[in-house]
């Protein structure tokens, strides 16, 4: 199963670029959902077999990241009645370029970090960093609240990939706790987005700038 890890990570990186390049919000949510599925597969393949813990985590990941959260986001999208991310702070092409740069930097940076023998040559660390970076980029350059939530999800996914290397360190209940926190966070964000769209008739977060110096 270990052999599947790197191909899966490459797909994950491709999805990152998809997230950076698309302007349609529905596609963005789908991309995020697919990342959830990829993560579940990665859990199984990294653990090198279907243990009870791996299965539970994979199941929870699929359930939450591919089904529950995208559903919540889709609902929020429907309520806000918008479809596209127009005029991001940084355009789509530059975003893609930056994303590429970030991925490259992640590869470079990851080389400075010595890997344990069992992960030698693996893409786990660079992919983790690149995904986190992508998430950050979405957060910092997109205007729509929903896109930012997707960015946050991508950031979490990157962290999650890093966590894949640490099976013993994170016992099951901590792992579940992390996932639970994520869901609650997205849930709360969803509620706030609902309030934003009601109060401001838009989910453009650059309009949220009455609190400033």
């Amino acid at each position, binding site marked *: 199963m270990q052999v599947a890890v790197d191909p899966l990570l490459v797909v994950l990186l491709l999805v990152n670029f998809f997230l950076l390049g698309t302007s349609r919000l529905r596609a963005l949510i789908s991309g995020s959902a697919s990342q959830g599925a990829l993560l579940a597969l990665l859990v199984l393949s990294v653990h090198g077999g279907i243990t009870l813990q791996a299965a539970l985590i994979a199941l929870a990941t699929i359930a939450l990241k591919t089904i529950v959260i995208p559903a919540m986001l889709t609902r929020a999208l429907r309520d806000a009645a918008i479809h596209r991310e127009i005029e991001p702070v940084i355009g789509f092409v530059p975003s893609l370029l930056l994303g590429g740069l970030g991925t490259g930097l992640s590869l470079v*940076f990851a080389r400075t970090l010595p890997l344990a023998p069992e992960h030698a040559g693996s893409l786990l660390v660079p992919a983790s960093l690149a995904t986190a970076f992508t998430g950050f980029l979405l957060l*910092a350059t997109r*205007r729509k609240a929903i896109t930012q939530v997707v960015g946050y999800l991508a950031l979490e996914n990157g962290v999650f990939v890093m966590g894949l290397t640490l099976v013993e360190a994170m016992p099951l209940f901590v792992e579940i706790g992390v996932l639970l926190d994520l869901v609650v966070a997205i849930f709360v964000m969803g509620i706030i987005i609902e309030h934003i769209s009601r109060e401001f008739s838009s989910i453009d*977060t*650059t309009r949220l*700038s*009455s*609190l*400033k*110096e």
Partner: protein
Amino acid sequence: MSEALALAACALAALSGMPGLFLPREGRAGERLACALIATADAAGVTAAVLAFASPSPRGISLPWAVPGGALEVRVDGLSAMFLAQIFFISALGAVYGLGYWRQVEHPHNGRKLRLFYGLLTAAMGLLVVARNAVLFLAGWEVMALAAFLTITTEDEKPAVREVGYLYLVATRLGTLCLFALFALLYGATGRFDFDTRGVEAGGPVGTAIFLLALAGFGIKAGLMPLHVWLPGAHGSAPTHVSALMSGVLIKMGIYGLARTAAGFAHPPLWWGGTLLSLGAVSAVLGVAFAIGQHDLKRLLAYHSVENIGIICMGLGLALLGRAVGHPELVLLGLAGALLHVWNHGLFKALLFLGAGSVIHGTGTRELDRLGGLLKRMPATALLFLVGAVAICGLPPLNGFVSELFVYLGLFQAVAAREGRWWIATAFAAPALALVGALALACFVKAFGAVFLGEPRSQDALRAHEAPRTMLGPMIALAASCACIGLAPAMVAPALDSAAASWGVRTPLASAVPLEKITLAAVLLLAALALAAAALASRVRGSSAAPTWDCGYAAPSARMQYSSSSFAQMLVGLFAFALRPREHAPRLAGPFPARAAYHGEVPDAILDRLVLPSLRAAGRAFEALRFIERGNVQAYLGYILLTLVLLLVWK
């Protein structure tokens, strides 16, 4: 013994305002009780000082105190006792004066608050002069600063009072922060938390830093030019008996700090004393020059505090010079001059402020150009104010002359030094002091003349009434003290000897200064005056009266009198390079010019042209930096990313 008494006095003074808070707001019981308490406390404090003069205890009290770095170390030596006596003496007189000046029935909103913080202020000052531990000292220091702030802003409904309060608060805080650094450095160098500087090399970087920090930190409190910017406003705006306490006592705490810190350095470099001497001279000359330009009686008095602090610093600088060149008599004369002037200034400045308070009480104004002719309406106040004015000019036979004489003697001794060339650098000081004396005379003739002599310039002055006995009593006590020290300086010599012992000077003052000759000269002067007065009186009895001749002008009016501004105009013009006066002089043209009025004022040049503009510039620069928080969450997230990347790249 004296330590315990001093601490008890502090505690009692701190609590003096408390009972009033629980008594009815309208009654007089609260203020009387507070006054009685603080008077008791002050009696105890003065007794403690006197005991310490008689037999300074070698050990003091030392108890553990459960705060980091703190210890309850208290000791009253001669130096402490000098200040202790002054604090409690003037505080008591101020409290009595307050009974008449700030009556609870007239100030129901802030009277209780004022008395509470007045007591606290007294206690904090008492504590800081006996404290021998840095934390305890700083606690006393800052409580004093805050209590003073709260008394200055007693009438915080007035915008001007709020402004000066803020300025004072900022200035005093800057000074306190310097002291933080000072004590931290001392601790680093000696490992101890007292004023003991043994082991610190005076000429080394730490010693230099300590001296400069002390100069800045204590100099701000003392109001040494150019760190005086808070002082004129604060003294002008506080209730007058608080001004008296501040000007007479509070700013001296800066002097105490300087004297106490310097006492530890047995071999200071020459430039320490030189710096202090020069700063003192600058402060004295410019202080009095600014004073001459003022229209506001209390501001005028406040600038004289800057002047007198300058004189005191000259004395201290002289003492340091004496140490640097190994000339013990110079140390004695400088220190005795400085410390006696501390007392003297406390006495006559408090007297003058209380006199000004009586004028405000009787007329409702403190504008010199609205007063005049009060001598006939407030004869007692006028006489007492005159005593203060003569004393502050350093004229015989009053106390100001004695302390200035000590400083002069020291300055002449310095110039007469046999070895080295350093003395030439001190040669400017005695003439500067003479200039200061002459200018102070000009200023106080102007003030006394504008307020008490001639004809009333306004209805307020016309309707003036004499102050009640509660206000006159303290003034009489102060005037009597001024006369006592002036006539019999030998009385205070033991106190000065005891204080000089804190600096390691063992020579008695009487061996360096002809104290009994001063008494003789003063008595002769009084006799000559009395003789001349009697002679003239015998000739002019039963003479007739007529309006002022005024070169034959037929219809003189009060508005034609020389005003205080016109009196000062020439001198202000001479010092215009430093004072930067503002004048609004109309240009008169044509045969029938329109009605015009001249107006001139001397604002504080350092405050208005240096401090405030730089603060405003800093404020603008800070506002320009606000673009980094424009409310854009994307940018905020970008900052985090940027920080992360930078930190990962760095190292």
